[in-house]
């Protein structure tokens, strides 16, 4: 048998990734509640503790939660390696990550240094287990295709993000003398441009052609993009730390052009898909790629036009575009592909030849996916508008964020409940047949 060097090990049990996917949407709801509670003050500056609390509810509670869960699922299928003891590993990551994502915003909000200790312990442990398990698996990968290379770069970036995050935590709790502004910039850059963008890049190489029926990404692009971006990010960080602002600007501009090129290539591929009627998750990719392109161009413009960088709204706009517009939207769309497919796959795997299983579209019809898309788009537009008029628009933006998060959570819970019902009925039929 020819298997092109890939392992045929079993995919991890459904509950391994599912626990992350079912938890994450409720962090969007928590973020909405925080916005409702604190009101326009949240958008006064990116440096306020309340803004940092909101950011980490979204980046750790929602984004990292799904990204880690998806990696545990993807590694055996795409890379051909298995994470050892998947259920135990998932629990050792999921519980501290979820608690840490709750405690860290509390630490920012309370202003009490003591809260940063448990936050750092929980997140350090959860991400530490995730990084160890996934990096070991990735380094043992029998094939080093473009996705594996991009994932390795993304995981390396998560390691840097975590290390800097812990160092900043020490600053917040113990007042350690650190160049905190520069470290925060570098921490943010590695978290958003390294970990988030490069992980989406590695996943996009596989899923955009497969799920959206587009041509593949160009080979030269797939081979070179992630290592080049990681190298630029490293150079940018070193220049930031030594204070070489002139050089840093040019490397930053190159990074922005790189990100824009990924958004542009993906957008171009999406216009060349083989199906005329788009998949229901296509709209989430459009929101994500448009936001990424807009964010990259805006960043590029601020680097070249110093007067623009002085504008008070720019950093918040970049945050909304990159965190909600790009990452949350793309992850939201991906969840609608991953969760119903896994439910359907695990039903097939367990009930094949024993009981009838539903089609994937019965597990999650297209209509709620398309309906929730409108709330996702409305949230992005309201958040962007709220950057300019927070006093009026922060409340509708918060409500919209709460609605879209809850809608996603309910839709995913619906798939899980349908899965349980079919599985229980199938197993009951089989035991009746046996008796």
């Amino acid at each position: 048998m020819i298997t092109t060097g890939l392992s045929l090990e079993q995919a991890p049990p459904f509950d391994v990734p599912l626990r992350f996917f079912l938890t994450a949407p409720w962090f969007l709801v928590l973020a909405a509640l925080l916005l409702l509670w604190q009101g326009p003050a949240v958008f006064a500056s990116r440096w306020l503790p309340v803004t940092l609390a909101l950011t980490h509810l979204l980046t750790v509670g929602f984004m990292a939660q799904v990204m880690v869960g998806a990696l545990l699922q993807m590694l055996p299928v795409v890379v051909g390696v298995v994470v050892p003891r998947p259920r135990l590993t998932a629990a050792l990551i999921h519980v501290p990550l979820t608690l840490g994502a709750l405690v860290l915003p509390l630490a920012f909000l309370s202003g009490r240094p003591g809260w940063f200790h448990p936050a750092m312990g929980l997140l350090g442990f959860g991400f530490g287990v995730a990084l160890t398990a996934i990096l070991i698996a990735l380094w043992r990968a029998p094939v080093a295709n473009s996705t594996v290379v991009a994932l390795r770069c993304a995981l390396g970036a998560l390691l840097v993000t975590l290390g800097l995050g812990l160092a900043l935590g020490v600053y917040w709790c113990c007042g350690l003398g650190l160049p905190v502004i520069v470290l925060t910039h570098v921490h943010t850059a590695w978290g958003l441009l390294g970990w988030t963008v490069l992980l989406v890049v590695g996943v996009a190489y596989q899923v955009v052609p497969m799920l959206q029926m587009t041509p593949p990404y160009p080979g030269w692009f797939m081979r070179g993009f992630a290592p080049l971006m990681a190298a630029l990010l490293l150079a940018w960080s070193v220049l930031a730390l030594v204070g070489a602002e002139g050089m840093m600007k040019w490397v930053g501009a190159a990074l922005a052009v790189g990100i824009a090129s990924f958004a542009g290539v993906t957008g171009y591929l999406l216009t060349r898909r083989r199906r005329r009627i788009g998949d229901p998750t296509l709209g989430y990719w459009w929101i994500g790629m448009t936001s990424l392109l807009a964010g990259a161009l805006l960043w590029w413009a601020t680097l070249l036009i110093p007067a623009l960088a002085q504008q008070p709204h720019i950093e918040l706009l970049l945050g909304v575009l990159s965190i909600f517009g790009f990452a949350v939207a793309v992850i939201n769309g991906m969840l609608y592909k991953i969760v119903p497919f896994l439910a359907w796959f695990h039903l097939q795997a367990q009930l094949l030849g024993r009981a009838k299983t539903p089609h994937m579209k019965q597990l999650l019809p297209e209509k709620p996916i398309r309906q929730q898309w409108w709330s996702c788009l409305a949230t992005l537009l309201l958040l962007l508008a709220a950057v300019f008029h927070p006093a009026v628009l922060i409340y509708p933006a918060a409500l919209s964020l709460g609605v879209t998060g809850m809608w996603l959570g309910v839709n995913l819970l619906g798939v899980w409940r349908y899965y349980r019902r079919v599985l229980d009925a199938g197993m009951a039929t089989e035991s009746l047949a046996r008796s």
Partner: protein
Amino acid sequence: MSTADMMTVDGRGLEHPEPLERVLAALEQLQPGQCLRFLIHRQPFPLYDILNRHQYRYETRAVDGGFEILIAKP
């Protein structure tokens, strides 16, 4: 093996997860001694997982930029 003993499912170019849906539907029809030939444009790892779990015998060959998987009942 004669063509009567061979069922073919061509999943090349179909939208995900239709190839997998078709091949699993065909597996349910597969008789002992019969062989299912599945043509697909990418390595169908989820299918291998299901085949392994249910002890089907199978063999994969790379053909014309895609893959041919021959499957027989346990």
